[in-house]
């Protein structure tokens, strides 16, 4: 949630669908991918995040929205 702590700490190779704790920084509370004007991600970073989040959603590692009916 919110912006990454420090922009410089993020290594592009770390952006992966398996790294859900990192990806969670780039999605809003409702599960939407945050625009890069909010997160401060570079264009390259944003493209990779975009893809990684979508793969993680398919594998149910990340939610599509906050309205999934559990139970």
């Amino acid at each position, binding site marked *: 949630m919110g912006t990454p702590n420090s922009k410089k700490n993020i290594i592009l190779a*770390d952006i*992966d669908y*398996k*790294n859900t*704790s990192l990806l969670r920084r780039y999605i809003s509370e409702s599960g939407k991918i945050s625009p890069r004007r909010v997160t401060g991600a570079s264009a390259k970073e944003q493209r990779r995040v975009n893809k990684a989040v979508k*793969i993680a*959603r*398919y*594998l*149910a*590692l*990340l*939610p*599509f929205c906050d309205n*999934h*009916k*559990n*139970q």
Partner: protein
Amino acid sequence: MESITRHYELVLMFDINQDESMTASTLDKYKSVITENSGSIHRFEDWGIMKLAYLINKNNKARYYLINFESNCKTIDELTNLIKFNDNIIRHLFLIQDEKSTEPSVMMQSKEKA
């Protein structure tokens, strides 16, 4: 002509209500399919049972497995067919990788820390 091999990553999500010995035998079968078709397995990981972000076929948990391997595309077709007709697998995903990965993935690293 020698067929071109590629590096693949396969994620399998197993139904946890099924027998565990069945899971082990299916995984062994898939591994043998890869190795028999002149492929090789570089990484195999069991992420264990994890909670799903949303329900899939009324399941709220699944057992995840990750397999990184090198093989030709014929093997992929064969595996896809096997997976498709396996009711224990609730979801699967093949990804093409640029290079082989042998180090433990982020998922396993975070598990070790915990």
